[in-house]
């Protein structure tokens, strides 16, 4: 177009309107989309029919078991033992306090509630990307919260809080506690390990690498066994760590190794130019890591961190192997209560636990997808 103007001659101009083109076909309606999607070919038809048959076979019994035939209110297991009765939600309702707090003393349970609410608020604050003062939240969550939680849960007689021994702890609260300890320890420790692994000092790098690879190469159960049976041997008999503390240490170390690999991925994504520029400005190596590298690297790996946390949360169920009464273990012992014994009790208990874990894990994975999308958007613009 510009060529014509440059040549000095009048550019070619259309004398009248162009003939109207045909309108693009209207977007196919819902029915057409469905037809194309579900009945596009003979094979597709067959698949659709099989799928419908599958749903038709599986859904009604499931619905009947979980809702229609379920027993919602009952004083004991008699109503749930009736033939044809579905899930016994009354059993869950009756056992709920035990499932949440374990054997934690009745009068002290507000302490558990306070801790969980505090932790929840702080986590939401941290995960909400646009929240104000997220730095303060970080410090509160990683330093102040663990101390407060310890004082609240374990007790501090000088503050008027009765000591509650850990063998009384149990239920959902212990599961959440194990997961919280895992995340609070594993994130800082994982960062240190990742930095150590990338260090130019061969001894440090070798030590960190072997720690990470050994812990990642073995099942978590063996780490728990090790923490449970070997930690007491490392110290004199009188100093033997608490029975809940041992698996907590095991879980924290195990999670740190996985977290370290996630963080390392983020560190590798930082271009070398960033470090070189910071060095040119005369910044100290530690300052560079703290102010330049880590903030960028950690932002990249938020989805990875959340995914690791999902894995950690599912793995907390394994602490039952060393005798900790986590949520699943309380379900296991509640379902064996003779007062409620019945053919549907086990399935009810597992359905409830599955719902609980699914809600948490699915929610977290959606959050991680959301963050991923936002990071990708930030990178595009």
């Amino acid at each position, binding site marked *: 177009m510009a060529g014509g103007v440059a040549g000095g001659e009048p550019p070619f101009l259309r004398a009248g309107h162009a003939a109207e083109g045909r309108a693009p076909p209207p977007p196919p309606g819902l029915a057409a989309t*469905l037809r194309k*999607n*579900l009945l*596009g070919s003979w*094979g*597709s038809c067959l*698949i*659709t029919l099989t*799928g*419908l048959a*599958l*749903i038709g076979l599986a859904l009604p019994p499931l619905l009947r078991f979980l809702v229609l035939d379920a027993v919602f209110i009952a004083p004991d297991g008699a109503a749930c033992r009736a033939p044809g009765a579905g899930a016994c939600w009354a059993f869950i309702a009756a056992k709920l306090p035990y499932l949440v707090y374990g054997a934690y003393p009745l009068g002290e349970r507000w302490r558990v509630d306070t801790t969980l609410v505090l932790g929840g608020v702080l986590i939401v604050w941290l995960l909400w990307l646009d929240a104000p003062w997220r730095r303060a939240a970080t410090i509160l969550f990683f330093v102040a919260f663990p101390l407060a939680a310890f004082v609240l849960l374990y007790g501090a007689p000088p503050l008027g809080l009765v000591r509650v021994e850990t063998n009384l702890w149990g239920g959902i609260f212990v599961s959440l506690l194990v997961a919280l300890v895992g995340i609070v320890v594993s994130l800082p420790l994982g960062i240190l390990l990742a930095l150590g692994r990338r260090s*130019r*000092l*061969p*001894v*440090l790098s070798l*030590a960190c690498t072997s720690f990470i690879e*050994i812990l*990642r*190469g*073995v*099942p*978590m*159960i*063996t*780490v728990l*066994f*090790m923490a449970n*049976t*070997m930690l007491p*041997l*490392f*110290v*004199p*008999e009188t100093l033997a760590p608490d029975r809940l503390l041992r698996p907590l240490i095991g879980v924290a170390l195990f999670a740190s190794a996985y977290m370290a690999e996630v963080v390392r991925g983020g560190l590798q994504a930082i271009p070398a130019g960033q470090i070189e520029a910071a*060095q040119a400005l005369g910044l100290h190596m530690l300052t560079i890591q703290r102010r330049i590298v880590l903030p960028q690297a950690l932002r990249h790996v938020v989805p990875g961190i959340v995914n690791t946390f*999902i894995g950690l949360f*599912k*793995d907390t*169920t*394994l602490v*039952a*192997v060393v005798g900790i009464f986590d949520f*699943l273990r309380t379900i*296991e012992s509640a*379902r064996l209560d003779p007062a409620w014994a019945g*053919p549907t009790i*086990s*399935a009810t208990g*597992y359905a409830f*636990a*599955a719902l609980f*874990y*699914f809600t948490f*894990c*699915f929610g977290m*994975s959606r959050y991680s997808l959301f963050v991923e999308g936002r990071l990708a958007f930030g990178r595009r613009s």
Partner: protein
Amino acid sequence: MRRRSDEAAAHRRLAAPLSRLATSPALRRTLVQVAVAAVLGGLLVAAFLDVRSNMEARGIPTGFGFLDDPAGFDINQSLIAYSATSTYGRAFLVGLLNTCLVAAIGLVLSTLLGFLVGIARLSPNMLLRGLASAYVEGLRNVPLLLQLLFWYNAVLRPLPPPSEALLLPFGSALTNRGLYLPAPIAAQSLAPVALAALLGMGVAFVLFRRMRGRHGPAQGVRVAVIALALVLPPVLATAAFGWPVTFERPELGRFNYAGGLRLTPELVALVMGLSLYTAAFIAEVVRAGLEAVPRGQSEAAAALGLDASRTYRFVLIPQAMRLIVPLLTSQYLNLVKNSSLAVFVGYPDLVQVFAGTVLNQTGAAVQVVLVTMAVYLAISLVASAAMNLYNRRVALVER
């Protein structure tokens, strides 16, 4: 860096030897390393001495001599001869083999199911896609332990007793005592048929190598020749020496099934739980791999007239494998590591037998836990090495 060392050199000439520490990065680095090594080494030695004295004080064996002592407990499933009079070392082997058994079955089943579900998630059919997504999200977000307990305590244990067993095809039966399958029994004449089959495979392989390439015979001829090479020798051998394998069906006796192959409920629960759970992860790996293949590839395949199954077999999967293999390796390793959850359903795997019963009976915690960890670590390292090798071969195909 150079600016710094110049500066350091200038300082070095002027400053006293002590302050060189502050200015020479190389010296500082060495000192830091020595310090790290000294602290780590010191900690390890201290821990070792402490553990040894603690173990001696508590009368715990400190060597590996206990492995030769009689175990004195029974194991309800064993691939090798084992009885209560066997040694702890033998019990270790039994546990290790049981772990390998469950891992091998789990690997095959979860791979098959995982690939099917992963491909289904990309199907043009909306319903199939939805079902596959529901499967993946449902199983991935619930702890494996919960699923295992569900299969074992809520599904397999409440099954009817043998007298009212659920009868399956081929004389199989599902009862609360386990899954009974027909057992293959090798007859006397197995050797010639096996040899013939091996010979056939060798011939087929050679023929396959020969006929490869553009100038070889047509596809149909190739398939026919290779199929003939594979099938003919064993068939001839069978004709000459008789049918080599008979199946022994489980028969219902007065109280229980006799004969046949019995899979314990523990094994079935563990295999089901592990396979279904891992398949969900493998499906995600497969989907990610297939989605990473550029769209133009499947469009080009469609333009060439390949149908869906050929597009997948010859175009998409070979390319996707490059991404899939490393991720698949880590899922396989997870499966092997997760098989240690056997301890929760009482399946006698390495952890249940060795880190459980043997540890409790002998008290040799340090040795037992370290050996158990070493076994898993060795499996992990070998598997990563093998997959790295494969990975390198696949990568070579790339331009």
